[in-house]
């Protein structure tokens, strides 16, 4: 599942795609399948190969090996100006010497579309991004958010079969980003175009994409819906990369078909399902901070219960984060929602606290 996508066929397919720059492998044997109408995100930190993969799709880079199939047609050798694919650049790359109208019309004019149709189409696009009043302005006269919408209108004007978004919200400030990401999804869905987006921002990927491919060192580590990626990471990198997580290394000590136990340095972790491995095999337990309960008084549970001293408290408004140090010095991050106004106020620095989690909540990662 992890390296190769479960979908056997798709609208856009990459088959064993490899891109080498001299001796650096930027994209390493990537095979993904994207369905028509999907918003697919390539997520990873900088240098993970996601941008190179996007540039291969756009036609700016030629793959060293492998195929790119769009609707069954191998487009890997097509130059960018002959692909039914348009891209919204991270920097927007609006033409500074042309006004907004001409920027949007640029691609249509290259197609040789009759002027009357160009006019209709450009007006339709400007209407879509609500910039009709700005048609005669130059790009530098617009705000960042407006420029982004022009870039979107320009990349949608030719009705591409595939739309590529390179860090679509990367150049906007945080407040504007949150507002824009829903607006962007709304526009994309109203047009019904298939989208591949690249981002290093997991929040952006989670809110916008229907499926996410997590990349590292040129490889795709896991493909899945945002929920699958978050709740069921299949390897340590994905678990650690997406959100906050507590990882414990241990060995499998009990393995039955409906329960298992894993011995970690601080005790034994009970899991409500079997692993199907061999006793003594090394495993990693991953527990999300929000899945852990915390209390000053001893709770009425006796499995997956640990204790420690509160070292740090972070107040984030909607939730608080506690860093608890266990006896052997190991720290665990626990978050608690601040549901009612005065909750958690009794836990303070250096308090001795108990924390525990349900048997269903940890994710077991094999090495």
């Amino acid at each position: 599942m992890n390296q190769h996508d479960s979908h056997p066929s798709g609208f856009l397919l990459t088959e064993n795609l490899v891109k080498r720059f001299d001796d650096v492998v930027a994209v390493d044997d990537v095979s993904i399948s994207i369905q028509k109408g999907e918003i697919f995100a390539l997520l990873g930190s900088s240098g993970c190969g996601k941008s190179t993969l996007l540039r291969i799709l756009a036609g700016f880079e030629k793959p060293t090996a492998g195929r790119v199939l769009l609707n069954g047609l191998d487009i890997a050798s097509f130059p960018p100006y002959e692909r039914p694919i348009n891209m919204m650049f991270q920097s927007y790359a609006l033409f500074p010497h042309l006004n907004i109208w001409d920027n949007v019309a640029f691609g249509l004019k290259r197609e040789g579309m009759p002027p009357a149709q160009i006019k209709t189409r450009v007006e339709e696009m400007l209407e879509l991004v609500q910039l009709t009043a700005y048609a005669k302005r130059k790009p530098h006269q617009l705000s960042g958010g407006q420029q982004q919408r022009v870039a979107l209108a320009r990349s949608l004007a030719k009705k591409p079969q595939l739309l590529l978004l390179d860090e679509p919200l990367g150049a906007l400030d945080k407040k504007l980003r949150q507002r824009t990401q829903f607006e962007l999804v709304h526009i994309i869905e109203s047009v019904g175009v298939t989208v591949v987006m690249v981002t290093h921002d997991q929040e952006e990927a989670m809110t916008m994409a229907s499926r996410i491919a997590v990349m590292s060192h040129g490889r795709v580590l896991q493909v899945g819906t945002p929920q699958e990626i978050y709740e069921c990471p299949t390897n340590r990198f994905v678990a650690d990369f997406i959100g906050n997580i507590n990882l414990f290394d241990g060995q499998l000590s009990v393995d039955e078909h409906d329960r298992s136990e894993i011995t970690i340095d601080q005790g034994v972790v009970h899991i409500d399902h079997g692993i199907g491995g061999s006793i003594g095999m090394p495993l990693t337990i991953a527990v999300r901070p929000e899945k852990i309960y915390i209390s000053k008084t001893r709770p009425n549970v006796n499995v997956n219960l640990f204790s420690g001293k509160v070292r740090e408290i972070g107040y984030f408004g909607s939730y608080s984060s506690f860093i608890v140090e266990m006896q052997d010095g190991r720290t665990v991050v626990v978050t608690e929602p601040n549901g009612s106004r005065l909750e958690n106020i009794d836990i303070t620095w250096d308090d001795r606290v108990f924390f525990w989690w349900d048997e269903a909540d940890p994710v077991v990662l094999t090495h």
Partner: protein
Amino acid sequence: MNIQRWLHVHPGRRFVIGVPFVWLLIFFVVPFLILLRISVTDMGNGVNPFAPLMQAVDGSLHIMLKYQNYLSIFEEVDKGSGAKAWGQTIYLEAYLTSLKYACLTTILCLVIGYPFAYFIARAKKSVQPALLMLVMLPFWTSFLLRVYAWKGILADQGVVNNVLVWAGFIQEPLQLLYSDVSMLVGMTYVYCPFMILPLYATLVKLDFRLLEAAYDLGASPWKAFWLITVPLSKAGIIAGSMLVFIPCVGEFVIPSLLGGAENIMIGRVVWDEMFSSNNWPRASALAVVMILFILVPMAVYNHYGAEREAAGKE
């Protein structure tokens, strides 16, 4: 409004702007005024090369302004009847020759310099200084020596002819030296760096992602070049063309050393009027008209260019 703004600027800034301004005033405007003053007087009486502007006659001050020098540029005197008519004087011909060769040189410099500047701007950052150094390297040798070197290359028994004869392309050496060819080669060679440097300066700032955006939207590389690269390097094209065109119009040394007898350029005519005919007023008038030829189109361009720019920024 401009004066108001000028008064409000910081004293330090005023100094920085003021010093070059005063420098230009002294070494451009003052000589120009002297030139203008000489151009409206008569030839002198032998001791002075030109007549005084003001004379006290019978206790009153007379200022004599003669426009005859200007008229003679455009008026032809029929040798038989002495009648005057507008016509093709040698001066007008010299102006047209100068403008023609300045235009040709500018076009040649642009055609040669643009790909060159583009290549440097797109080269690796680490090799760009070395490539720019190569452009400027010729300036380390005397200008005259470099022009003389072309004599050796283009002469009847020069490098080019010898190679062509040896290779069997021609039987007799071509007349390259003292012709249009040698003059254009020399001027293009000397002025090309003045075209390349401003072009490089604008092209290096060009965001090459804009070209990718153009390809992405369906423009072929050639189309993208014309629709994106050329318009965005317009400032460099104009600056480079002016830097080549303006000195080329008045160029004197290269045409004298490499040019033929039939292509008399205005620089040569001014020289002859000044030092052979000793007619300082006419030489001055010729120089003033030459400056007008250059300044008027420049001023018109600047005016409309600035207006367009302002309109775009609103």
